[in-house]
């Protein structure tokens, strides 16, 4: 008996499907790169391939990367994050509009040059999280070393202050996102690996709450107190280091 291997993440060919095996003419097979995606619903893969194909026919590109909640299990995504790496100027809004009109799904298109992406990965945890779980048209080079710019991180962290003052009015998802932002910056500063799993583990460890509870808005006063204490202490550290960096420059 011989065996035939097919990619685990594929369109069609569900287990149990009858197939006919016939030789094809030799041609280059284009295969996307999957990063930390164990499985993906076939319909989503179809959407991803469609995005690649539309962009390829529309503009020049160095790479196309799909990230965000589309790649999470289920169908709770509001839009699709598409990162288009290209050295030339493009009409971002126009590409976004074309993708949306063909797919009928909201698209959040971000255009960057390779140099900009490298810098973003060095200074901003959000980009590291994005690329940690993604599908790309071409291979993504290894992540660059981090460069801690504390004032920049302070600016990104200040948004998470909202949870302290307005906890009773925010939805569970809003609370989760603000907490995720704070913890992602914390892990980035502590030079720890950034992934959704690591962030959620750290949320549980530092704030004694499971992410699902947070998303479902099952929180109490104890959590807010813990969050505030953690935020204020970490904010102090960030501001102190930012001021030190400013003086050194």
């Amino acid at each position, binding site marked *: 008996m011989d065996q035939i291997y097919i990619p685990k993440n594929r369109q069609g060919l569900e287990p149990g499907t009858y197939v006919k095996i016939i030789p094809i003419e030799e041609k280059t097979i284009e295969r996307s790169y999957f990063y930390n995606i164990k499985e993906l619903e076939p319909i989503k893969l179809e959407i991803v391939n469609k995005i690649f194909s539309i962009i390829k026919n529309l503009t020049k590109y160095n790479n196309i990367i799909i990230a965000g909640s589309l790649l999470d299990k289920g169908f709770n995504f509001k839009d699709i994050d598409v990162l288009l790496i290209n050295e030339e100027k493009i009409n971002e809004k126009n590409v976004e509009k074309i993708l949306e009109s063909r797919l009928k799904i909201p698209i959040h298109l971000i255009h960057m040059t390779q140099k900009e992406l490298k810098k973003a990965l060095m200074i*901003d945890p959000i980009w590291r999280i994005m690329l940690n779980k993604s599908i790309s048209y071409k291979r993504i080079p290894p992540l660059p070393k981090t460069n801690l710019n504390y004032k920049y991180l302070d600016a990104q962290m200040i948004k998470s202050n909202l949870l302290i003052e307005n906890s009773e009015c925010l939805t569970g998802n809003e609370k989760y996102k603000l907490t995720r932002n704070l913890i992602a910056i914390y892990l980035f500063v502590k030079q720890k690996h950034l992934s959704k799993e690591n962030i959620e583990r750290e949320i549980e460890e530092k704030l004694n709450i499971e992410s699902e509870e947070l998303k479902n808005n099952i929180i109490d006063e104890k959590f807010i107190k813990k969050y505030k204490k953690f935020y204020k202490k970490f904010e102090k550290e960030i501001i102190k280091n930012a001021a030190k960096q400013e003086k050194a420059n």
Partner: protein
Amino acid sequence: MPQNRKKLIDLFIGHISEAVSHEILIRSTENKEIASHYKKELENLLDRSKKYREKINPKNSSLPEKDIDYIKTKIIIKVKTELKKRISLGYKNIDLGLIEILVDKFLKEAKIS
């Protein structure tokens, strides 16, 4: 002002204040271009503030002058306090002159002024 309305105004103030502080801090760094690529969270912050604004009173009718002054003053004080704390510790290039400009811009977007 009724308690619920006051809460909504406070929420609105909180959201705009964080957005203004964030924007001024980002502009004081050399990395504002990088931040400009990912505006989704800032946009969410502003979208939420617009929702609160619509709950305060219908968006097509303007707020009483007294409320507009209260909101604007509160935001300016809040942002100034945050930024001055940082300046006193050694932050450079923080343009406090931007506070009023950005507050006006965001309030206009939210159809407050």
